[in-house]
């Protein structure tokens, strides 16, 4: 099995390439790319399939967001280009039901087709076997299916646009808006397709989750003990557990609304409700039940959308400041704490919902306490940076941005976790500011860094640094100018999901600020083409690099770039944790690959010399 601690006698064996299972010729640098259109069961190909799909979906989600921003800055005016294409019939103008559709689909695409699959699907797939020293995932076929189930999901979401203007009950899909066909133009067939798409994404995630857990538990290389795993692996592991326990609840809830909609059950529908002159409902159900089920999944899901980025940033940061992670175990424990607490805080989305008010108290305490592990992680990142040899490259800048933006998102969480204050700011733009700071500010910047960091492993070439920095600066400035003012809008009582807020006198004066935000958002949108250009062009013209361009410790850097089928030349053996940068044991370099054996006497001598 995998967790054997190797005895010192094995030392040095891995250097000896002669008795591995043969020499593979170094794979062609575009070998993964050519495999994209196949039903490959190779985890690296699947990871790349996820990555490219989600990057494209990022552009789709971004376009939808620009529609929202346009309407908020120039209500009811013709939207050039995008509007002309999509809403030609309305003269390029966004109708109110279209606006609610845009809000709904922007969030749905970003959450279900971008953030979740780019973290677990793309990086989880690509990195897990490489970093634990396995030749592939435990269940390669399941893995292949988990990617290909994304396409029916995407197809369902896409189809939903063609019915009644598209689903428009928000990504949260609260009944009765989502349960009664007559409730809105988008509550008909469009809502069915939306639910179907959601279920399929869930199936895809679940297949991934089972696979990741099994792989991480069973397939670690000899010597890769739990506490020698890179934090990326820990985060993927914890995320997979979250998925496995939370997702069934959402899937069940989805089936229940579907049954309410099509089979005449009434899980969520009370009696005697008349919507749009339709016949009164038979009823007996309770709409709040949906909120409980939905958030029981979706709160853990926000951590599914964050933890892997936390893990990856930890890895990148240690490497880019040539220094061990500060407090490795506290980092692991705090991720575990976040995951554990994450299951008992869902009610903080429901403070004003009319649920039993006593619950408001307990959910408030658990929610505020979840800020604690978040704070601990932040302090440990600062500790990691402290005294490091900082390399201010694109990877590092995005990682620092991750921490700096996460601080803002975490702190705004405290306002909302405080129930009385949340009474006021719930469902205002304050919430929108909060989750964009964590999901975009933290996660997405982390992902930008990760793309730049692991790209060489995918293609044997580096991405362009200058373009990377330009993309970073434009996105970072655009991001802050777009989203920071949302806190202020929230304090001003600016409600979410309003097609035209400005006919309320108390919001009139906020139009210029919104126009500024929209300009920043457009800048940010355009900047993403730089990323795409850099990503795709670097595959062909990027600077060639070897196996370990960053001088990093992880097992993945011992493989060829890109790794061939089966990944490693010889099955790797792991001798230390992944963060031994600048260790006295490193000799002439400043890193110590996990596979590099250091004789016992030397370790003892150094250990005696350094106090613990």
């Amino acid at each position, binding site marked *: 099995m995998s967790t054997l601690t190797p005895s010192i006698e094995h030392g040095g064996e891995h250097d000896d390439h002669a008795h591995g299972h043969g020499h593979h010729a170094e794979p062609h640098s575009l070998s993964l790319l050519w495999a994209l259109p196949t039903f490959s069961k190779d985890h690296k190909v699947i990871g790349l399939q996820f990555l490219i799909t989600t990057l494209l979906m990022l552009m789709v989600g971004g376009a939808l967001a620009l529609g929202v921003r346009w309407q908020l800055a120039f209500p009811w005016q013709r939207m050039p280009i995008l509007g002309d294409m999509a809403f030609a019939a309305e003269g390029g103008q966004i109708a*109110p039901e279209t606006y*609610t559709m845009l809000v709904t689909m922007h969030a749905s695409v970003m959450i279900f087709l971008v953030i979740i699959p780019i973290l677990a699907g793309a990086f989880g797939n690509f990195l897990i076997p490489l970093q634990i020293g396995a030749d592939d995932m435990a269940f390669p076929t399941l893995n292949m299916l988990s990617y290909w189930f994304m396409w029916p999901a995407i197809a369902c979401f896409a189809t939903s646009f063609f019915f009644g203007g598209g689903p*428009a*009950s928000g990504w949260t899909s609260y*009944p*009765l*808006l989502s349960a009664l066909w007559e*409730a809105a*133009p988008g509550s008909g067939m469009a809502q069915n397709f939306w639910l179907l798409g959601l279920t399929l994404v869930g199936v895809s995630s679940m297949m991934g989750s089972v696979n990741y857990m099994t792989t991480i538990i069973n397939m670690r290389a000899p010597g890769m003990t739990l506490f020698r795993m890179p934090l990326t692996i820990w985060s993927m592991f914890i995320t997979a557990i979250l998925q496995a326990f939370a997702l069934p609840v959402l899937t069940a809830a989805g089936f229940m609304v579907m049954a309410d909609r099509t089979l005449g059950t009434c899980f969520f529908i*009370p009696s005697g409700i*008349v919507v749009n002159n339709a016949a009164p409902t038979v009823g007996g*159900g309770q709409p709040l039940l949906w909120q409980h089920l939905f958030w029981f999944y979706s709160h853990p899901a926000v951590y599914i959308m964050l933890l892997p980025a936390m893990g990856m940033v930890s890895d990148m940061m240690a490497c880019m400041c040539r*220094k*061990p*992670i500060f407090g*490795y175990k*506290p980092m692991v424990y705090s991720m575990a704490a976040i995951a554990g607490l994450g299951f008992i805080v869902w009610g903080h989305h429901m403070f*004003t*919902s*009319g649920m039993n*008010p006593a619950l*408001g108290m307990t959910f408030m*305490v658990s929610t*505020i*306490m979840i800020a*604690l592990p978040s704070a*601990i992680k932040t*302090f440990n990142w*600062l500790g990691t*940076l*402290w*005294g490091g*040899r900082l390399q*201010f490259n694109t990877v590092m*800048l995005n990682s*620092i941005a991750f921490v700096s933006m996460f*601080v803002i998102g975490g*702190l705004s969480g*405290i*306002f909302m976790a405080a*129930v*009385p204050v949340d*009474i006021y700011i719930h*469902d205002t733009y304050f919430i929108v500011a909060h989750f964009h700071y964590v999901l975009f500010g933290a996660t997405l910047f982390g992902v930008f860094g990760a793309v730049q960091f692991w790209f060489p492993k995918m293609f044997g070439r580096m991405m362009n640094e200058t373009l990377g920095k330009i993309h970073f600066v434009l996105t*970072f400035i655009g991001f*802050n100018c777009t989203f920071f003012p949302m*806190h*202020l*809008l929230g*304090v001003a*009582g600016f*409600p*979410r999901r*309003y*097609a035209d807020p400005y*006919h309320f006198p*108390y919001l009139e004066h906020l139009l210029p*600020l919104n126009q500024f935000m929209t300009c920043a958002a457009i800048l940010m949108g355009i900047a993403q083409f730089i990323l795409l250009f850099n990503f795709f062009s670097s595959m062909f013209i990027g600077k060639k690099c070897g196996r370990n361009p960053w001088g990093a410790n992880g097992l993945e850097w011992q493989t060829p770039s890109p790794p061939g089928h089966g990944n490693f030349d010889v099955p790797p053996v792991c001798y230390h944790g992944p963060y031994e*940068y600048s260790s*006295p044991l490193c000799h002439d370099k400043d890193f110590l690959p996990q596979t590099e054996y250091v004789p016992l006497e030397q370790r003892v001598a150094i250990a005696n010399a350094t106090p613990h």
Partner: protein
Amino acid sequence: MRNAAVGKFWAIFFTAVAVLAVAVCVVAPDYGWWFPGDGRAHSTLGQKIDDLFYLILVIVAVTFIGVNAALGYILWHGASLPSDKKALFSHGSHALEVIWTIVPAGILLFIALYQMDVWAQYRIKNFYPKTMEPVAEVTARQFEWRIRYPARGKKLMPTPQPDDVYTVNDLRVPTGHPVSISLRSDDVQHSFFVPELRVKQDAVPGLVIPVWWEMTDIGSFELVCAELCGWGHYKMKARVVAMSDEDFEAWKSQAAQEQFYDGVSTKDGELVSQSEQE
């Protein structure tokens, strides 16, 4: 040394973002990017909510400035490390971990416990004010607010009475003592939100939810819907008008009179025809 200069630039870059964020918040009230109206809450609980908000704001601001100062310093320091020096080799510090676990835990726990009172008063029956006047039943529907008041001198009944007074998108309440409404929805979920009172409560189909507050000032305050309820969600524009007790009673009589006016009036006991009136 070019590298050091580049590093210092980024240290300043990240610090500048934090400085700007604080600066924007400081000037925000001057531009009206802050609490609506005159910036004060016009209900008693609303004022307590504002106090809690400002308390959290202070704690958060101190933390934010502290963390960003540390970040800026660390980046600056890291950029100026001489190029022949290795990074500090350290796996962490147990003492620091303990400190930065216990101190924030204490602060966070304090924040949580400190909120309890206001929440209890807002939502938990045992902590409600002793006397409270149920003024109206407010029913949200796509896309308006329907309001039903009991007749002058009568009590609000759970079901409509023949002499009830109705308004649409116009909720009148007396000022200076606690009032409550029964919140319902006719169709999908909505949310009753009066920004200047800091009151918000979802209207859930199938439930009747009591909401109370006490107006501190006379005036008119905007009422909006805060839960996505369909394409016209943004249109549910209404107002809450706070009146003195006398004005409120007078308004109710007059509203009742207008509502039950059958097109025929009497003058000195004589019928006055429609045409003569005009």
